[in-house]
């Protein structure tokens, strides 16, 4: 299978899944926007209405973080189970196992396109004006995407080897939800050393902060840091592709048994 054909297949699988999913629900494609908005509403009620964080821009602050986080967590969570879920196809065709997680990630990418449009809309309504700095978002989104694919591959392999990882990954996402600065500001921690530590240790916290810096404060991200996260994700992705290509039959056996 040529590379072009491979990506056409990924695209076809993603579109089919999206269409099938939309046809299952009464509200269809509206869920693309509705689900993330409901998430944001829940967080808004808890942290702004009940706990009163006192930030005037809390809604925008929350949306920048939460919407990007949902992209990551949903894609990785679903992709982690994708090889095992597709064991019918795995047992029938010798195809590289990267196909299944990538199709799931692609699905998430299409959905996220709509979500980002919504985010831009809200930013405009809230009085944020687009500036050339917003172009810095392109590398941020790219690095975010690379990180999602790398994590999706790792997750899919782990679940294939030992099903229990499916539970651990779901739990890990909840852990990241609390530690990545979604409803609290990494930069407002009482100890500045802690801010540095969180940003250095958790690349997701760094990325979410980068979205806010660009969109809310017209500040380009820390390029060196972004570069390292991008390079790390790309390296990890490369290693995973090699592992999955070399051990395609082994993963098939694991998915089937």
């Amino acid at each position, binding site marked *: *299978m040529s590379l072009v*054909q491979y990506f*056409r*297949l990924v695209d*076809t*699988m993603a579109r*089919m*899944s999206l*269409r*099938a*999913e939309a046809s*299952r629900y009464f509200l269809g494609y509206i869920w693309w926007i509705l689900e993330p908005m409901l998430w944001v509403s829940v967080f808004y009620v808890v942290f702004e209405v009940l706990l009163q964080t006192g930030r005037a821009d809390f809604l925008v602050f929350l949306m920048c973080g939460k919407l990007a986080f949902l992209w990551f967590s949903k894609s990785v969570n679903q992709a982690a189970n994708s090889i095992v879920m*597709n064991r*019918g*196809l*795995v*047992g*029938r*065709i*010798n*195809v590289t196992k990267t196909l299944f997680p990538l199709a799931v990630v692609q699905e998430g990418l299409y959905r996220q396109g709509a979500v980002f449009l919504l985010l831009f809309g809200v930013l405009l309504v809230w009085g944020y004006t687009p500036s050339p700095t917003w172009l810095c978002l392109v590398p941020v989104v790219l690095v975010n995407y690379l990180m999602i694919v790398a994590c999706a591959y790792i997750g899919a392999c782990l679940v294939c080897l030992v099903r229990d990882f499916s539970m651990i990954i779901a739990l890990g996402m909840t852990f990241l939800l609390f530690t990545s600065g979604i409803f609290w500001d990494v930069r407002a921690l009482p100890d500045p050393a802690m801010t540095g530590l969180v940003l250095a240790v958790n690349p997701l916290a760094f990325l979410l902060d980068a979205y806010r810096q660009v969109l809310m404060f017209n500040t380009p991200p820390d390029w060196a840091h972004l570069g390292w996260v991008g390079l790390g994700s790309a390296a990890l992705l490369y290693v995973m592709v090699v592992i999955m290509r070399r051990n395609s*039959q*082994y993963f*098939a*056996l694991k998915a*089937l*048994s």
Partner: protein
Amino acid sequence: MISADGKPVMLSLEEVSLSYQSRRQSFDHGSHHVLERVSLEIHEGETLGIIGRNGVGKTTMLRLMAGILAPTSGRVRQHPGKTSALLTIGLGFRPDLSGRDNAMLAAMLQGATARQARGYLEEIKAFSELGDSFEERVKTYSAGMLARLGFTTALMTHVDILLVDEVLSVGDAQFREKAQKAMIERITGDQTVVFVSHMEGQVRDICNRAICIEAGRIVADGEPQAVLKTYRELR
């Protein structure tokens, strides 16, 4: 690749074993099978039938031949440049997608481009006699409809070595006859076929060679009538 008697070898298994650790003791449908040092050569144009009781490793053998699984030891060799495909029914369909989408996906996974795959769709719809159900989700299909879709999508793929797993054993009698006829048409060309079935009549009618597997080994190999006799004695 040439065999001792001068015929081109399409596929060969050399001392192939497959074993694995399974905590839940399940593989496929709860059976646990292992192949032990199996050697076999399949020649060009041959129609080989594999028979054996349930759970002796017939499907596993086809999966090894198709390169879906790798042997624990031994070698599976395919003639360079030749393509092979495993055809099975039911399994591998995504229940939330329509028959059309599933057929499209199956063709593309088999290596067809999107345009080629779209070209097959009307043919698949017509042959399978699914009518409007072709646009409905596979989840709503009966076993017979699944068999029709499975067989037809399988039939449309064009490969040098066809590995067929029980495709002809299900569905209603009328469609089964039609499917068998279409299959024989394919086989009478120079198509190489490996055919798993538990229907003795089909093996006798379609195959020109048969093997019988028992407990992970080949216990009979040769003319279908003789191999079927061994098989009946095992049951």
